[in-house]
């Protein structure tokens, strides 16, 4: 291999550990590594720590009780105070409102194999608390990018008033904004419950939760739920709340069409069979808010950019391959949180802490083996719980039969299901990448983050085979992990 010209590695500020993401995983990772004596930089696209799970109102303009609608809030505030203490003692440099847009890999033979993260502000004129560098280098990097709601196109899902369930939750938790007055929550998985109860508590009329799967799915591994007692308690809480607010929980039911012109007005419901085919009409409902969620898609762009190996997880997500100490397959790269497999915030915290400790140990700082083992055990228990959850809440296998030719598959480029089928059937596109290059789904602003999973599913379904990691990899492989202005790309980076 030839020596590649480096852009910045030799000159950008260098840290023992660079952590991306200040959600449950990244926060725990940064704090653990710093407390183990590492100099840490924590980069996050958001303005304040918490990630998706602990999203809360602006700390400089609090709106009543911060913890409203939260679970495990004290875990967060404890992590946050440790973070602030470490920031004050200059053990952690926190860079909020920064997105990593490019990961520069080490050159062959670099020791340590340091990665350089190139940064851009999350929005024009972001208040990043001073200038800050355009790039940082970490001898080790811990990637904790979390994920986003997984979506399936359905007729009418591009109408205003249709939102990702997590987006509805983000408005509630972050801004106390109720996204609609009469809502329906649909898709699959336990996450639909906090969204529905959160809306109801905030005063919305929630007409139903439609779960495409069924909770009897959990009976396949009843002990898994017992492995994480907190989860059972939470489930009970939600069940009570649903009853209190008289929200029907309709299993094996899905929204199969959304109607409206300028915004959503009503939805059509269908009862599904086990395979996700429409069995019978289940009526309609007039609503002004539809919250949709089919689980989560881990954000694998940064992981792919390092060249680390990925695999397909049990829930059909692409995830990073890590060893039992959170190391990815590329030296110097660690991954924690949703990017190693969707499993909830407490799993993310445990993985983050373990990753933080392992960067320290790998850099020859002393780390308690007892701590490591405790974390590994906790991770194993949470993984078992996650496996049971995924088994109970699969994406309906025949979901694509709900689509009409006019259904928009790619929201950004407005590609219809008909056009996707045309690329495949008339032009001979044999995989998701070729469909994308010919018909443009996934080529717009979001670069397939929203429709990529569905496009991969469609490609597999056409051939009547199961989804593979190769179907999913093209969407994760983004040479730019966030958009960057031509100007910033053209300039050599600044370091103050």
């Amino acid at each position, binding site marked *: 291999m030839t020596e590649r010209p480096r852009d910045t590695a030799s000159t950008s500020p260098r840290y023992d550990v660079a952590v991306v993401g200040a959600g449950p995983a990244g926060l725990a990772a940064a704090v653990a590594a710093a407390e183990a004596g590492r100099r840490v930089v924590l980069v996050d696209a958001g303005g304040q720590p918490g990630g998706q799970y602990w999203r809360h109102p602006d700390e400089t303009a609090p709106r009543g009780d911060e913890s409203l609608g939260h679970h495990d809030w004290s875990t967060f505030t404890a992590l946050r105070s440790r973070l602030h203490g470490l920031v004050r003692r200059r053990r952690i440099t926190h860079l909020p409102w920064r997105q990593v847009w490019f990961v520069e890999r080490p050159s062959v033979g670099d020791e340590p194999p340091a990665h350089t993260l190139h940064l851009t502000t999350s929005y024009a004129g972001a208040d990043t608390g001073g200038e800050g560098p355009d790039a940082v280098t970490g001898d080790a990097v811990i990637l904790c990018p979390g994920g986003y709601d997984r979506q399936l196109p359905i007729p009418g899902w591009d109408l205003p008033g249709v939102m990702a369930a997590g987006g509805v939750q983000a408005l509630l938790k972050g801004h106390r904004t109720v996204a609609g007055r009469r809502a329906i929550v649909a898709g699959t998985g336990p996450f639909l419950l906090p969204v529905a109860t959160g809306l109801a508590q905030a005063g919305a009329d929630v007409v139903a939760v439609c779960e495409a799967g069924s909770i009897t799915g959990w009976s396949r591994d009843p002990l898994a739920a017992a492995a994480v007692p907190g989860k059972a308690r939470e489930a009970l809480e939600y069940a009570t709340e649903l009853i209190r607010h008289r929200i029907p929980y309709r299993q094996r039911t899905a929204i199969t069409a959304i109607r409206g012109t300028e915004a959503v007005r009503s939805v059509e419901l269908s009862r599904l069979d086990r395979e996700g085919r429409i069995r019978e009409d289940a009526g309609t409902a007039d609503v002004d808010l539809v919250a949709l969620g089919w689980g989560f898609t881990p954000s694998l762009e940064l992981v792919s950019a390092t060249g680390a190996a990925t695999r397909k997880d049990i829930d059909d997500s692409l995830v990073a391959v890590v060893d039992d100490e959170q190391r990815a397959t590329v030296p110097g790269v660690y991954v924690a949180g949703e990017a190693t497999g969707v499993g909830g915030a407490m799993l993310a915290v445990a993985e983050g802490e373990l990753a933080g400790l392992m960067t320290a140990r790998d850099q020859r700082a002393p780390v308690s083996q007892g701590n490591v083992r405790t974390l590994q055990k906790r991770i194993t228990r949470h993984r078992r719980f996650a496996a049971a959850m995924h088994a109970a809440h699969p994406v309906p296998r025949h979901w694509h039969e709900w689509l009409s030719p006019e259904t928009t598959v790619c929201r950004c480029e407005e590609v219809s299901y008909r056009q996707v089928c045309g690329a495949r059937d008339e032009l001979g596109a044999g995989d998701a990448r070729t469909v994308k290059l010919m018909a443009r789904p996934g080529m717009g602003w979001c670069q397939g983050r929203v429709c990529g999973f569905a496009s991969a599913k469609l490609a597999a379904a056409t051939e009547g085979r199961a989804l593979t990691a190769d179907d999913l990899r093209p969407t994760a492989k983004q040479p730019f992990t966030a958009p960057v202005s031509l100007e910033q790309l053209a300039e*050599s980076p600044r370091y103050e």
Partner: protein
Amino acid sequence: MAHTADVVIIGAGALGAACAYFATEQGLRVHIVERGEIAGGTTSACEGNLLVSDKEAGHELDLALYSNQVWRRDLAPYNHLWEFENKGGLIVAATESGARNLAELAGRQREAGIDVTDVAADEVHAYEPHLTEDLTAAAHYPQDCQVQPMLMAAQLIRIARERGARIWTRTEVTDLHRDGDAVAGVVTSRGTIHADHVINAAGTWAGDIARLAGVSVPILPRRGFVLITEPLPRTVFHKVYSGDYVASTTSSDEGLQTSTVIEGTRAGTILIGSSRERVGFDSTVSLPALRQIAAKALTLYPVLAKTKIMRNYHGFRPYCADHLPVIGHDPRAPGLWHASGHEGAGIGLSVGSAKLLVQQLTGREPDLDLTPFAPERFDLVEAS
């Protein structure tokens, strides 16, 4: 699978697709064998310009002008299928010496038959309102046009299939079937296909196919990066590039060269190219290359400073030392034909190359003499 065809085409890129189109037009029974997906090679990693403006007088330009006719006449009924745009090219110069060089280039090109209009500095903005003020001259080339390359390849293959061609994707050619000295078919990962003629349209990998026949066709990869912007209202109307682009296409330098090539697309995005480097098949994204491309584009279009770059891609141009493609019958391996090595112009040159090759294959006199593109020409160089 044990099939028989008149012609087997290896590779379903621009060249393979165009060969399939013209061969089936002559009633030949065609099989296409592609190890990946349709148009999944370099054809999916380029820009789709059909240029005459970037060529100096010579054999490549003759082929480009011929190809231009094929696009405009033979394929006229289909051009809407691949977003054919008759947009014209604009070369700009930013210095006095650049202006002189451009005027001289335009003069030579005019003599060679290119339609070119000199544009004075104060007229440039009538063509491209958003270009920088700091220009000394420009030249306008109305013959330059653009297509969406993947659609072009896929649609030509679709038409060929309607005429009876068969395509085998995810099928790799692992050997050539021989009948004595002659090449008489291909051995693939899914069986053998017997054929009178085998066309090597394997692009940057065509040298490997030639080697299977025991002959040398020295095609090397030359990497190129392209930046893609967010979708914008139409901002760039022509294919716009700087004068140094022509020098860079004809250079054999191994190091990084970039020269600005900018064009809008139907989708609203702007493609900003490009670089040329000989780094083998190294697919690591090179930030220095991207920075150079961006910086040069900004000097032409300062108005794009805040425009977001959404992604980038790269491809490996199939490159021969003398910058000419390899087209026609290989006398060293009877039955083997080549349509490869078109470097940075394989989309534009594809249809002309294919039409000429099929003329030769069906025993007709090609409209353009193919001798300069002869596959065995490299042996002669080595021998002398």
